[in-house]
């Protein structure tokens, strides 16, 4: 049967856990974004903005967003490099004061085809339904350039060594069954000098806040799941899995064990969420 692991507060084998988690995300995919907004009152958007700002990608960056399902990080990354690129172009133009209108027009043309400055993001997710939703969103929102969607497992990535400048995993590592393997894979596919960034729910140490957070999590969130998505059980799993996930220091150690250097973390909202960062040298 295999070693006993946790699925939320239940005890399951490794294989059962993978299957159950796949089913959870298959079930929630269509309402994923709506539920995120409802549960966090829209604050998850800020958390993701902060992650991309911390990344501070420059044009030409190659990003791998793992467990990126519905594309939230990928789209933010694209917006960010686009605006950085815009600023670059404007600065360039400012320096070319003596160009004719023809020359300026031509330079605009050239750069229009390169609005991302060769930046690229690969969204990798193990769940077909989540990827489907992500692709639909991309189409609706008009994202196509510099974006690819790959079906893959964080524990065994379908990419070569030393390929990416940045690796992100936002609210995904909690659902990975072998976190150590995922971290090793992250290390493997990053270029030397590459950065690992992880955004995830973490431990609230403040006791009063912790009680309120628990109350909200266990009393309200499954109800929201039932009312909005007709799915109590997936959201019960979600809040339980947050409690089962290693706290900040322990995750930091795990990241260091995978070979990363200069590993640190930043708490957001008193530790409800934390961003861990590390570098491959």
């Amino acid at each position, binding site marked *: 049967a295999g070693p006993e692991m946790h699925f939320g507060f239940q005890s399951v084998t490794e294989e059962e856990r993978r299957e159950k988690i796949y089913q959870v995300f298959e079930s929630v995919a269509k309402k994923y974004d709506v539920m995120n907004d409802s549960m966090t009152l829209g604050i998850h958007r800020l958390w993701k903005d902060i992650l991309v700002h911390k990344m501070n990608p420059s044009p030409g960056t190659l990003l791998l967003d793992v467990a990126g399902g519905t594309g939230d990080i990928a789209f933010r990354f694209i917006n960010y490099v686009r605006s950085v690129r815009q600023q670059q172009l404007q600065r360039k133009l400012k320096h070319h004061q003596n160009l004719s209108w023809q020359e300026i027009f031509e330079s605009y043309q050239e750069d229009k085809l390169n609005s991302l400055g060769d930046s690229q993001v690969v969204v990798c997710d193990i769940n077909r339904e989540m990827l489907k939703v992500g692709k639909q969103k991309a189409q609706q929102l008009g994202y196509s350039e510099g974006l690819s969607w790959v079906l893959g497992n964080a524990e065994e990535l379908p990419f070569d060594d030393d390929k990416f400048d940045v690796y992100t995993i936002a609210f995904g590592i909690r659902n990975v069954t072998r976190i150590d393997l995922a971290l090793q894979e992250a290390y493997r596919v990053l270029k030397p000098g590459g950065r690992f960034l992880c955004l995830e729910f973490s431990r609230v140490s403040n006791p009063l806040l912790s009680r309120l957070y628990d109350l909200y999590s266990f*009393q309200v969130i499954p109800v929201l799941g039932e009312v909005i998505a007709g799915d109590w059980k997936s959201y019960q799993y979600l809040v339980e899995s947050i*409690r089962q996930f290693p*706290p900040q220091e322990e995750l930091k150690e795990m990241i260091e064990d995978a070979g990363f250097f200069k590993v640190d973390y930043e708490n957001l909202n008193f530790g409800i969420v934390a961003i861990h960062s590390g570098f491959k040298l």
Partner: protein
Amino acid sequence: GTARLSHSDPRGWDGRGVQEEEEEEGWQQLYPGHIPTSPLQKALLAAGSAVMALCDPYRHDMVAVLGETTGCLALPNLRDKMKHHPEGYRILQERPRIRLSTLDMARLRGLPDGSLGREYVRFLEDNRVSPDTRMPPKFVDDEELAYVIQRYREVHDLMHTLLGMPTNMLGEVVVKWFEAVQTGLPMCVLGAAFGPVRLSARKLQVLATELVPWAIRSGRNASCILNVYYEQRWEQPVESLREEIGIFPPP
């Protein structure tokens, strides 16, 4: 028996296993599909499902959840009515279920026109509905009461048949009024009161002047509709069954 409920305060990482705590405080699954809930959760569910059912009438699951979370007084009442009636008592013991797999549709179709079985099948076919789409109960914390609400849901289509009402908005509202009087379930009362909101003025008039008064009179006059073992009365003519229960002929 009934489950004792506790406010859930599970410790995941460094406290004792939640399994122990759950078993200690009676936080158990009483029947397949049962989700134990705290009083706070029930209150939130009741409020949320009410709003959602109003906003999106296609969310039948929300109507079901509303019924379960607000039925804590009405359901024991109904169960007691069943217990004290010979036929109702038998139903509680034998727990019949109305589903396509247990019904002999061919036989029912072959019964004479005007019989309960024939008219029920006709109703299902005309309105293109099936008894299998009823939601199983999740939030009722008593296994017997869960059956009572399940029985109420499965008997709903028979109500349509006995009252002669189609499954359009108007027909549903009329049946809700009848059920509200019969069962006292808050969900029926709310459905009866808010359902008409989406009807046209003309329909509202018919509703108010003829249909609702008749539904209320019938509901009051009739014996408890859950005390009828419908599965043993397929051959009985609808009119005779109506008279026996005490439902007045539809206008």
